[in-house]
């Protein structure tokens, strides 16, 4: 087993406010392996942006350790820390390009910091512009570029020093869906071709399911669950996990009284007419509330929210059939059923 490239252990981060202390991260431990794309997802305020800033020590953790490539960040001098940061590229939701520099000179910026000779830096920047497919825009200023182009320049800039890790803080959240897909495709390509480890912070399950190998779901400063994306997508164990996977669907559906179940498909059941069988089995119609397919790790996976018949006997029949057909399912926490105790939820 290889050593993790980033090892976060028992990280805690408090912010001193004027009146009270906010505990943004309570206790988080994560190991990111070299070459993987690791996702951290959570709702806003879950502590994920603070977490990624602790990884390169833009925020100093209150306690706990971050070990990057065998180096304990807490024991480094400021100078050593700056050298370590050059091995970690970072991109941001708002791109954070230098507005008074051209695309090319934005990319040479981290090289100038490192003291690389100008013509070498320019050569490297042109090479990177080619990788992010913007070779014809080297003299454009950020104000002349679209959001997606700006993020491409930011990615090229983050890669200039040949980092081992790329940290992405909500890198696609300011982009439209098509641009998001092209940026995600680029990240995936960089991961595959250059072997760079990518740590992705997002609040969008689509981002996780499209490019991540593993994911940690963060809630209220703690890890709610962690594992392979495909596993968590098929069978989330926590309420927050289910909420994030259903995403906006839960808001689109108008739930009334009754029991709702989310069932997932991974393509294996295509021989079987699942819904028809449910109806035949329970001898009662089921109501499809919501259906969607997602690309999870390159495999199309579907999810569907169905409303079960009211009769309890019929409900049992449906669930029995789902178990028999090996179709993963879990109950949807609707407003009506939200007082239900959720045993798997993380301790407070």
């Amino acid at each position, binding site marked *: 087993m290889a050593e993790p490239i980033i090892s976060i252990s028992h990280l805690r981060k408090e912010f001193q406010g004027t009146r009270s202390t906010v505990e943004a991260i309570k206790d988080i431990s994560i190991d990111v392996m070299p070459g993987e794309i690791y996702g951290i997802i959570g709702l806003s305020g879950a502590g994920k942006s603070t977490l990624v800033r602790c990884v390169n020590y833009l925020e100093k953790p209150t306690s706990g350790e971050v070990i990057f490539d065998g180096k304990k960040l807490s024991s480094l001098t400021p100078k050593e820390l700056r050298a370590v940061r050059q091995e970690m590229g*970072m991109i*941001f939701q708002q791109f*954070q390009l*230098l*507005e*008074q520099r051209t695309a090319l000179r934005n990319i040479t910026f981290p090289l100038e910091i490192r003291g690389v000779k100008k013509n070498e830096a320019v050569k490297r920047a042109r090479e990177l512009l080619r990788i992010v497919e913007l070779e014809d825009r080297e003299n454009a200023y950020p*104000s*002349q570029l679209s959001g997606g182009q700006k993020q491409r320049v930011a990615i090229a800039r*983050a890669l200039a020093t040949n980092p081992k890790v790329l940290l992405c803080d909500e890198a696609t959240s300011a982009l439209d869906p098509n641009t998001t897909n092209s940026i995600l495709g680029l990240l995936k390509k960089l991961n595959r071709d250059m072997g760079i480890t990518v740590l992705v912070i997002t609040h969008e399950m689509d981002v996780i399911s499209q490019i991540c190998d593993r994911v940690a779901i963060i809630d209220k400063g703690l890890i709610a669950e962690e594992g392979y994306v495909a596993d968590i997508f098929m069978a989330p164990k926590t309420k927050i996990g289910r909420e994030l996977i259903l995403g906006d669907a839960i808001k689109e559906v108008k739930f009334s009284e009754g029991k709702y179940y989310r069932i997932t498909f991974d393509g294996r059941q295509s021989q079987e007419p699942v819904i028809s069988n449910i109806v035949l089995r329970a001898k009662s119609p089921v109501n499809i509330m919501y259906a969607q397919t997602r690309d999870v790790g390159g495999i199309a996976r579907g999810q569907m929210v169905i409303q079960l018949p009211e009769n309890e006997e019929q409900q049992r029949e449906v669930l029995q059939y789902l178990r028999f057909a090996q179709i993963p399912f879990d109950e949807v926490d609707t407003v009506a059923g939200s007082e239900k105790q959720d045993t798997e939820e993380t301790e407070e």
Partner: protein
Amino acid sequence: MNFDAAVWKMILTGIWETIFMVFGSTLIGYLLGLPLGVVLVVTRKGGVHPVPVLNTVLGFIINIFRSIPFIILLIMVMPFTRALVGTTLGAKAVIPPLVIASAPYIARVVESELAEVDNGVIEAAKSMGASDWQIIYKVLLPETKPSLILGAALVLTTVVGYSCMSGFIGGGGLGDIAIRYGYYRYQADIMLVTVAILIIIVQVIQESGNRISLKTDKRIR
């Protein structure tokens, strides 16, 4: 007739003296005020390198200098001026008080301009391993160049006003002429001409500042 060759020569000398005083003292003022402004921004709470105590003390001292009315400052610094340039009369003698008045003002102007830089951009530079010093001269100053130029125009026009006030203590320049002829000799026409020239100087400075600033700004396309 007031406007003979001697008067015009005097006005020309006045123009030259005013320009010498204003640009000379602003230049020296920036040598002091620009670093002070940088220190104010960098050491403030949430800044690139917070040193709250230094920031508060420096801010307090700057406020003291900015509280002194320029006409009083002119008189207060006379001994210092004499020690430095050997006289308290003429254009050269006005430069020390102008520098003392403009440097704290420049520091505040620069501070507010540098504060425009988005914290996210500074954070990005830090994430690339930039040192505090590199953030100052590769991010803060270049990113605010257009604002700094506009600010310099603002400072120059303010210093034009100050330099004229120095006419009351025999400071030379157009203000001195306007005060001597308009106030002491009731020759309003000479005063009006010098005021008109001052208006032109201020307009030219401001307009050049606007144009250069706009030209260097890459945000607007």
